């Protein structure tokens, strides 16, 4: 394209932000080359104006907007709040018993999701990989992706229908002489219901990346293993699993990063006041506190706390995996 003929900028000068006058470019040469880049590529730069505006307004402004966690916000007032109140709202939620209950629920659901929803796609991908008949393999895959394409509202609706007192699950329980269970109304069932529907919805889709990783494993490795006398299991253990390890670790880090953000929308759709004791998580609580009860600053403080934990989790998981296995996201 247009820039290829003129000298490319040296690697070190790529960092300063693309503001032409006030940018951090101290050295005159850097500034001049910015001016030249702008003159030459102004049409390209003009294309990024709207997308940059989008990121600025709808992604970065809300990050800044979190200051209302430390300022008193009044509906209709400035979105950055009216006056500083320090850690008032933080102290408020730390001494709020409901907060600690929803915090425990979040950890529980996050942990269960990680333990069950992370390994299942791996196992499924390994099983699919052993299927030799392509048509069968395709069919199983197509079917298992299907729930991923449905709206979360539909998934929640189907879950409730299946688990209704007169639904198929209770009907099967009836065959064994079991009394119907009110899955949707009993707090002790919520975790099972949530994790189960999560597996139903995501397991098939989760296999895609693993199947892709499996195709990149070199056939010669299997052949060498066979010549060395490895049986099927040994081949899986020593060739297949190490082959998909980078993918596994990447996805594990990502999963850990979203640990705190457990399926907010799905919980909002599936829970009800009867199941709050186990179903209410940090994000649903802050939704009720913020949007339904208008305590924006209080809810923002909780949200900020949640986001910081998420960031700490993903950064430390990333560090840990870089140190121990040498794979990391950045």
């Amino acid at each position, binding site marked *: 394209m247009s820039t*290829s003929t003129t000298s490319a900028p040296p690697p070190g000068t*790529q960092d300063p932000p693309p503001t032409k006058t006030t940018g951090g470019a101290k050295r005159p040469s850097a500034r001049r080359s910015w001016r030249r880049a702008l003159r030459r590529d102004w049409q390209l730069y003009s294309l990024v104006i709207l997308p940059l505006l989008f990121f600025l307004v709808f992604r970065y402004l809300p990050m800044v*907007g979190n200051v209302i966690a430390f300022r008193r916000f009044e509906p209709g007032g400035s979105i950055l709040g009216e006056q500083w109140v320090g850690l008032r709202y933080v102290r408020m939620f730390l001494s709020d018993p409901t907060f600690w209950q929803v915090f425990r629920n979040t950890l529980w659901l996050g942990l269960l999701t990680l333990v069950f929803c992370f390994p299942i796609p791996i196992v499924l991908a390994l099983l699919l990989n052993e299927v030799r008949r392509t048509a069968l393999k395709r069919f199983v895959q197509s079917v298992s992706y299907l729930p991923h394409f449905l*709206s979360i509202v539909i998934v929640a609706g189907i879950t409730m229908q299946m688990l209704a007192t*007169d639904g198929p699950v209770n009907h099967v329980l009836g065959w064994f002489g079991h009394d119907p269970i009110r899955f949707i109304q009993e707090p002790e069932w919520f975790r099972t219901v949530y994790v189960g529907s999560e597996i139903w919805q995501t397991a098939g889709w989760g296999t895609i990346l693993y199947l892709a990783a499996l*195709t990149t494993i070199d056939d010669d490795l299997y052949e060498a293993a066979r010549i060395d006398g490895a049986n099927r299991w040994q081949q899986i253990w020593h060739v297949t699993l190490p082959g998909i390890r980078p993918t596994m670790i990447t996805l594990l880090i990502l999963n850990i990063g979203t640990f705190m953000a457990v399926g907010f929308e799905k919980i909002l759709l599936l829970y009800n006041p009867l199941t709050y004791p186990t179903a209410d998580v940090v994000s649903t609580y802050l939704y009720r506190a913020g949007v339904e009860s208008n305590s924006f600053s209080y809810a923002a403080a909780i949200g900020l706390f949640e986001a910081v934990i998420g*960031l700490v989790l993903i950064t430390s998981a990333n560090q840990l995996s870089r140190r121990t296995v040498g794979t990391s996201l950045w």
Partner: protein
Amino acid sequence: MSTVKTRPAKRPAKPRTSVNQPTRGYRVFQGVNGVILTGVVVLTLYPFLNIVARSFSGEREIRSGEVTLWPKGFDLTTYRIVINDGTFWRSYGNTVFYTVVATAVAMILTTCYAYVLSKKDLKGRGFLVGVAVFTMFFSGGLIPNYVLVTSLDLKNSVWAIALPNAISVFNLLVMKAFFESLPRELEEAAEIDGLSTYGILLRVVLPLSKAVVATMILFYSVSFWNSWFQAFLYMDRTDLMPVTVYLRNIIAGATGASNAGATTEQGTQVAASIQAVTIVLTSLPILCVYPFVQRYFVSGVMLGAVKG
């Protein structure tokens, strides 16, 4: 799917038989594997087929749990109720409208940004990539977003749905990877022929990128079609809600009714069959296009994973 090729693609299955005859144990494993995968298929499909069967069944048969895979006591009353409900059709129309507008906005913004990011020697490119990628790991959170959309006065307008999610960074990276793979010579030739950057993008790059553009339209439209929370948050008026919110209200109403107790068992049941019908009608468009589009999704996801 079709893109996930099995290993023997480049080499026929010869080595497997010559070096390592499938043992009896492996054959048993294949059998067990088949049973497990059949189980997966049944568990995934059954809830659907059951809902479809319920939607055509009579109330009494649903209540007694007779309905499994085939409608019992065939009854179209519920379909008639839902189809004659003006609110249902209005929300269906709203969904179509929101999906079209939001997808159009998203495509314009994503294409522009992805095209610029694909210029490897553009000054400031690293910064522009960073601006986008950082938002994958950190976001403002629900409350600041809500306050922002409210104070921009976007409530009860299509922009509350279209603008806050106008660029998905994942889609952006997929598109950028595709643009990077285009031969640069074509663009250079077009430049020599006197086309401006806009001209190159519109007349050379985009016509060459029909595949990725179609895939992105698909990604965005399915996600906007399926979304409900934005509308749930920002659409206060019933006549503005999309069909997902309509369905959610029916589900929420039904739980309310079943909470109310056994006295309204009849009422709950009607609500349950209405739920089934609404679920079927709402997922119908997705189910119709699904067989044709899913392979694009799969290849898109893998492209994003490999090159993102």
